[in-house]
């Protein structure tokens, strides 16, 4: 039998966690419950975060938006700052799962699941998000790239939880997008995806560009050589096509029932071509 706890505060959570070793933190449960059913391995206790207000807050100042770990994808979808200034993240949550999944699933859960197909991850990479981590006795922050250490693996220690994600707000004039190739419009695990953040000067020359691919390797893939190749140039179709070749060669996807590695490589490169039409 699993014991289920609903702490009202972080302090209460720490107490429950230390009294119930081996238990699992549950946010929306859209990954956790699926995993429990599939493996049949039930943790002795579930620590549900849903009543801890601190984890549900979205706050922002001029420079940074702070998103509580228990903020659902639906709330991100409805948030105006996300919509206007973090478009890649907004794009990602708009194609994540389906309405019911978006109403339960959280950004913290998506991060901690650390799936190579996790839709919020590539945007969080290109925005240079920081993950705030706490335990009973400790607080620390790491970059999202440091946080995710492999497929399904994070740098969380036992007793730690993610409390929030901080995203620096891009300078005005920066564009960002997330493109997803899935097998249908909803409820489709990403076959290949790409997030981009870019800033052009008045002549259309790329000053800054950050790219990250999902479902293209064991974890989110970044390719500094592709970014380097595009920086200082306009995003002509030809330049993008050449960069796409670097991408296809640089990503390290796998074969599975959703798509072959060969296909994923080519699509990862092709997604770059969409930039020719964004401004």
């Amino acid at each position, binding site marked *: 039998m699993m014991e289920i706890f609903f702490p009202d505060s972080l302090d209460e959570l720490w107490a429950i966690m230390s009294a119930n070793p081996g238990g699992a933190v549950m946010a929306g449960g859209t990954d956790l419950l699926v995993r429990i059913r599939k493996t049949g391995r039930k943790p002795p206790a579930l620590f549900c975060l849903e009543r801890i207000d601190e984890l549900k807050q979205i706050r922002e100042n001029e420079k940074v938006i702070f998103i509580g770990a228990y903020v659902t994808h639906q709330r991100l979808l409805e948030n105006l700052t996300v919509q206007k200034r973090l478009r890649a993240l907004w794009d990602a949550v708009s194609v994540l799962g389906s309405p019911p999944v978006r109403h339960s699933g959280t950004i913290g859960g998506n991060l901690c699941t650390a799936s190579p197909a996790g839709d919020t991850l590539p945007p969080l990479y290109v925005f240079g998000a920081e993950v705030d981590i706490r335990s009973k006795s400790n607080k620390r922050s790491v970059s999202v790239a440091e946080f995710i250490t492999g497929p399904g693996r994070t740098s969380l220690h036992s007793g730690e939880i993610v409390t929030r994600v901080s995203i620096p707000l891009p300078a005005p004039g920066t564009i960002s997008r997330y493109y997803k190739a899935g097998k249908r419009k909803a409820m489709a695990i990403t076959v290949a995806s790409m997030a981009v953040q870019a800033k052009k000067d008045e002549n259309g020359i790329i000053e800054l560009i950050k790219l990250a691919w999902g479902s293209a390797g064991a974890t989110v893939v970044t390719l500094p050589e592709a970014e380097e190749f595009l920086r200082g140039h306009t995003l002509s179709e030809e330049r993008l096509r050449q960069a796409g070749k670097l991408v296809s060669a640089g990503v390290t996807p796998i074969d599975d029932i959703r798509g072959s590695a060969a296909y994923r490589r*080519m*699509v990862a490169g092709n997604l770059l071509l969409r930039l020719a039409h964004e401004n």
Partner: protein
Amino acid sequence: MKNYNVVGHSVRRFDAVEKATGTATFTTDIKLPGMLYGKVLRSPHPHARIISIDTTEAEKMPGVKAAATYKNTPRVKYNGAATSMITLPPMAPVEDQYVFDNVVRYVGDEVAAVAAISEAVAEAALKLIKVEYEALPAVYDPLEAVSPATPEVHKECREGKNISGDLTKLNMGDVEKGFAECDVVIEDTFKVPVQKQVQMETQSAVAQVGLDGKITVWSTTQAPHPCKMILSKVFNIPQSKLRVLNPPYIGGGFGVRIGFSGKAEPIAVALSMLAKRPVKVVYTREEDFIASDTRHAGYITVKLGAKKDGAFHCIDMNATLNTGAYASWGVEAPAVLGCMGLAVYRIPNQNYIGRSVYTNTTPAGAMRGFGNPQGIFALESAVDMIAEKLGMDPVELRLKNIIQVGDPWVLPYQCASTGLAECIERGAKSIGWERRSKLNRPGDKILRGIGIGVGTHCSNAWPWFGDYSNAYVTVHQDGSVHLATGVPDMGTGTSTTLPQILAEALGVELESVSITFADTQATPFEIGSHASRTCYCAGNAVVAAAQDVRKQLLDYAAELLKVPPEKLDIKNSIIYIMGETAVDCSCSCAPVRQISLKEIAWRAHQQNKQFIGVGRIIPENAPPWHAHLAEVEVDTETGQVRVIKVVAAHDAGKVINPVIVEGQIQGGVLQGVGYAISEEIRYNDKGKQLHDAFHKYMLPTAEDVPEMEAIIVETNEPTGPFGAKGVGECGMVPTAPAITNAFYNATGIRLKEIPLTQEKVFMALKERA
């Protein structure tokens, strides 16, 4: 067309409130005192012999009440599909399956079952069953399975290695001569995937064995009477002691349970007999995916020839379908494929050979369209290919060649009505056919295209198979009317449309009609829902029963009103003299010129009489017609195909309930969209189904639903109730070729294999570039 009081109106469904409020009961809702839960142990091997099986440890587990294997269940071969009860001599049904056998033939085949006090205990007990297997060589592809070097899935195959049952051979004219006379000939082979019904309610049954030997089975069958007959045969119990019923609803079917629901019924009965307690068996979705009938996958070759002016002159088709480990409807699927494929166009020289082949995969059986969508995908692709070769517009070419009333065809009944030309014309207008081929500019990365597919179907299985219908109509002592029919309502609206037909035929108010359905004890024999027959056949039986009871009522009233019965009619539940307006006359004015059903029923009751009508019919058959037009979008950078719009124009004869018919069409179209672009079950090299869950099997989701327009073209079918024909299956028959032809129009690439999954499309685009 004639206007009716009740027929032709979108009256509220009888099941609407129950279903909307969640009070409608399904098999999965049933709970009986002392009820146990059954769980099934399934084969991990695609083909193996069971050397030993030991259930001792499982049976010792607390809470376990029975374990069933091939050792303690009947050794009677059967076919769980209704075909085994309606196949007519000289053909003989293929019976190739036991409840449990000592050979397993696909991953998921039943090895043993346990009944316990809970599902969890039953599941835990399964793990304690010790089975030793001897692996046997396996084969998965039907073309491989017929070659000499491959293993035999079943020994008794009269037509050749691994061929299940009889071949279908159809012929008209002279094909050899015909092709020699053609100016243009095309030939190609098409491949179709395994599609799954994915009805909402998984295979389920609850069996209760009474102390008196009577057995009651509540189940998800869409053919309760045949289900009862097959159970009777397997368990050697008189049919009179078996009652099979839906409770009364089923969460869909789409053909997956025309007979047994997988093996839910026989396993529940076997366990209940062993445990002497009621047993409930509910398949998980994974079990439903891997261990209940699928649509037949396979290969279809079409050779089509035409004269220069576009007149089709000769066709040769053949199909090899994969029927998996057991025949189920394996003989019939290629038969329907051929018959319906050849019935669309006027072609003087025709030839068809179809066969189903055993392999070590999940059995394939009936699914909406029943072979027809497979054949029509191939045929309608070929028609577009020949149109291109002839330099003709695909719409024009079809209009020129489609069957007209009176044309000779291979079917053993007449084409008495067709609205296909109107379907095509109205469909083409609605999709904007004239925009075709003008949608793309050079350099476009998203390509658009428009395509068409047309077809026909049947309205039941007669005269290929036994098909007859019965109905009882009882007038109660207050004049209200009860209908008893053995067909189910699996969401298709039968429990509304049949009362509509009764109310119209008898002249009573719909509100006074109630219906009992899908219960073998309370209704006379009916085959059930398949072959788009329910409204057409059961509807004709209801009309016959209504006429029978009407005659009794009018004869009785004639004496009271002192006029000959021919002068009487019934309207709004009042018997009146024709020519005199029927008024609701409550005063006691003499003489009596009319009498309500309420009064006459009560008078009869007081004279020890009840009006009971019996309808017994053998149906004719009739072709429904359909044209689908689709617009698609192809993303050349990812290979994704999106269906933007489908216009579905259908001639279903007289429509009994328009909203129900539109619902049938829309649901069918969406299944057709999935068939065309995303749904498939593939296997790995160990015979394991790769798409065995909702997140792997790509059904279109609500967000993938294209814009849809259902156009209803009403014709009057002289053989149908009030002019109705079948429609249930038609919604998905021509959808796939409409989409693949649109894909061709967009890209110039002819893919001969569905579904058009993104990777397949991407690779094809890349190959061409």
